[in-house]
C-alpha cells in the first residue's frame, strides 16, 4: 500500500496501476466458504457444473471480483475510503488467469466538506478485453 496522498496531488487523467492480478481457485473456495460450511458444486467451484451451464470453466463470483476492484482502488494510498462503487459485468472472469487492473481519475470535487475523487476502474484479461467496468467515488481523508 502506498503512503498518504493529498487531494491537490491528483490531476484528472492520473492513473492507478496497471497491476496484474490472478484470482486463484483457492481464493474462490475461501470466498465461498465465508457463508457456506460445505462447498457445493456450482459455476464458481466445479468445472463440470460450469460446463453444463455453457461456460468454459468455473468463474470468479461477482462479489469477489468487486472486492478485488475496490481493494485495488482504495489501497492505492492509505488515506482513501471508497464511498460508492458501481460495476458493470461485461464478461465472465475465469480462475487462474492473469488479469489486469487499471484506474483513471476522471473527476475531483468537494462535497459536504469532503474531498472526493471519481475513478474509472477496469478489470481486463490478457488480451485487454474489459471484463468488468467500474466507477468509484473515493473520499480522500486528510493526512
Amino acid at each position, binding site marked *: *500500500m502506498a503512503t498518504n496522498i493529498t487531494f491537490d496531488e491528483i490531476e484528472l487523467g492520473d492513473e492507478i496501476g496497471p497491476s496484474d492480478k490472478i484470482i486463484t481457485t483457492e*481464493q*474462490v473456495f*475461501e*470466498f465461498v*466458504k*465465508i*457463508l457456506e460450511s460445505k462447498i457445493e458444486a456450482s459455476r464458481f467451484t466445479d468445472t463440470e457444473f460450469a460446463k453444463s451451464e455453457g461456460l468454459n470453466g468455473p468463474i470468479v463470483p*461477482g*462479489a*469477489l471480483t*468487486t*472486492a*478485488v476492484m*475496490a*481493494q485495488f482502488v*482504495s*489501497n492505492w494510498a492509505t488515506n482513501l*475510503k*471508497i*464511498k*460508492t*462503487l*458501481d*460495476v*458493470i*459485468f461485461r464478461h465472465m472472469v475465469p480462475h487462474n488467469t492473469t488479469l489486469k487492473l487499471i484506474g483513471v481519475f476522471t473527476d475531483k470535487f468537494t462535497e459536504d466538506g469532503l474531498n472526493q475523487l471519481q475513478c474509472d476502474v477496469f478489470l481486463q484479461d490478457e488480451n485487454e478485453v474489459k471484463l468488468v467496468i467500474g466507477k468509484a467515488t473515493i473520499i480522500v481523508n486528510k493526512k
Partner: protein
Amino acid sequence: MSTEEEIKYDKSLLNKESYIGEFNITREMIDSFCKSTEETNPLFTNEEHANNSEYLGIIAPPTLCNIFMSKVTRPDIKIEFGDGTFFAGQALDNVNPIKPGDKLTVNTRLKEVFAKTGRSGKMIFEVWETKFANQDGLTTTLVRESFVHRKRS
C-alpha cells in the same frame, strides 16, 4: 424513451420493502474475506492499527455486504416484455462502517422500472435497492442491482 406508465408489471411492488433476514458479522468472517481477496489494509486486518484509527477498531472491507446478496430473493414483478433477462450491474454505497459483532438487518425494495432504447432495441430495466442496517438502526450499505429485460430476437 418510454414512460413508466407504458411498462406493464406489478406496480404494487414498487417501493414496497421486503424483509430478507439478519446476518451476524464476525471477526472470522472479515478475516476470511480478507484472506480470499488478499486484503492487507491494516484497517481490516490489524487490530492495533485499527484501534488507533478513527474507527477505534477493526472494520469490514467496503464490499463485505456483497457476500450476502446471493441470499436476497426478490418477488417476480411480472414484467410483460421480452424473453430474456440478464444482470446488468451493481452499485454499492458505503454509508457507515461495519464492525465485528454487528447484526445487520436486510431489506430490499423495487426502486424503479424504466425503459431505454438502444441499438438492439427496447430494454426494460428493473432496479432493486437492498439496505443493510446495523443493530443501532444505522444504514451501513445500500446495494442497487439492475436487471435488464429484452427481446432476444
